[in-house]
């Protein structure tokens, strides 16, 4: 579903060059739920922005959902969904209007978009909010609306950028259920970034760890834990231990 080779991005900032991503190889199979982990500034969002056509790679190539990123970005856009860190709904727009509009932007007829929007609002516990202004939603509701907008066109591949940042524990676990359902019920491939290791552990089949613009490890959460298991210590390592060992830094930088 995703195949990237040597993906790199360099930024020119006030005379100095910053290599945000330095040659990432990625393979994600259809139906996988993959977590993309890394400290702040490691290159997670830059990689995601390249894979979603928002940023042109300075080097490397990738096929995303069967389309070449460089030669057919519009083809990629038609086949993917992307839920960014920010809020996708306009604050002066009504919830239902925004969702229907998003469907229409992806080419659904107005009738189909309306039906789909109604169904999604039900599925994501947003029923009855269609006529409310997006500004009046709670943080968790807003996030679920973002997800609804990301999947209204039933993409085969969904990118989520830090989907649960800033949510309370209930909303977070509720969101996880919805993300699992995307994969289990709709058969979507899900690629999400996070810097909550419990989230990656609870949710993801496979985890990729990026640091300093390079992939430093990948595997199932269990495989990664086994890699850093210390026979001298009786307690089983957590993903936090894996992360600290591999990147030498703590993850939850408050500057997130």
């Amino acid at each position: 579903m995703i195949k990237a080779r040597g993906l790199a991005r360099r930024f020119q900032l006030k005379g100095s060059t910053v290599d945000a991503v330095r040659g990432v190889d990625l393979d994600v199979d259809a139906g996988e739920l993959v977590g993309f982990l890394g400290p702040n500034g490691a290159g997670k969002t830059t990689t995601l922005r390249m894979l979603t056509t928002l940023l042109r790679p300075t080097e490397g190539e990738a096929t995303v959902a069967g389309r070449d990123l460089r030669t057919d970005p519009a083809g990629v856009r038609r086949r993917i969904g992307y839920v960014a860190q920010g809020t996708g709904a306009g604050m002066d727009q009504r919830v239902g209007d925004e969702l229907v509009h998003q469907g229409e932007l992806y080419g659904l007829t107005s009738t189909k978009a309306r039906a789909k929007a109604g169904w999604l609002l039900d599925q994501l516990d947003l029923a009855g909010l269609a006529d409310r202004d997006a500004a009046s939603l709670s943080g968790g509701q807003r996030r679920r609306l973002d997800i609804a907008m990301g999947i209204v066109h039933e993409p085969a591949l969904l990118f989520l950028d830090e989907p649960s940042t800033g949510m309370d524990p209930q909303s977070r676990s509720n969101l996880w259920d919805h993300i699992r359902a995307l994969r289990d019920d709709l058969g979507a491939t899900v690629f999400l970034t996070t810097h909550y290791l419990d989230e990656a552990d609870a949710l993801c089949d496979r985890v990729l760890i990026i640091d300093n613009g390079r992939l430093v490890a990948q595997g199932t959460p269990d495989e990664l834990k086994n890699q850093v298991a210390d026979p001298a210590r009786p307690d089983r390592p957590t993903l936090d231990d894996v992360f600290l060992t591999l990147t030498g830094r703590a993850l939850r930088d408050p500057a997130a």
Partner: protein
Amino acid sequence: MIRETRLVFVRALRPMLRNPTVIVFGLSQPLLYLVLFGPLLGSVGGASGSSWQWFVPGLLVQLSLFGTAYAGFSLIPEIRSGVVERMRVTPVSRTALLFGRVLKDVLVLVVQAALLTAAATLFGFRASVWVVLLGLVLIGVLGVAVGAASYALALKLRQEYAFAPVLASTVIPLMLLSGVLLPMDRGPGWLYGLSRANPLAYVVEGERALMAADLGGRALTGGLVAVALVAVCASWGVRTFHRENA
């Protein structure tokens, strides 16, 4: 492409339809000029007609400039929150993302211009319906150019504190040097020369000629300048909307 532009247009229009009083508030500035400044111009019109025939067309150009130059402000919160980025990931053409918004502002502008013209008739402004319609077309064309430039600038600057001063330092001199308020040829030579370098001055003259039912050279020049402005500003706008990481 037309379908996509319409989708973006309808979305942009919705909050305004729910709160149409905004359209009237947007008229308050030109109405103040009409009521508190227009009567001072007693002698400007010369022998050919009242000063209102001279002043109202310029006021419409001013409305077009101020009405659409600030349009970019509506984009900045949507850039910041992520709305623009969400739409950039959809397959919708970048041109539609720009022009759907611009056309919303132009529609509002044309409605405001019609209301302003109607108000001006209370003061003695006279023009036939078809002349007014032609005048509204020219105003609308100018609005497309200024609106496209405003959105491009907003997308480049991304912050209100950067956008506002750039706008003020562009729009005010453009307005003062366009001869909207007083005839430029009454000023010193250097000032008149400066105004000749301002494309809006030709649009103002064209609008005055149109509203006087004079479809000669001045009207044509004004129209051509407005179309050229659309070509320049729209291609800048489309390029900016296409640019990566914008």
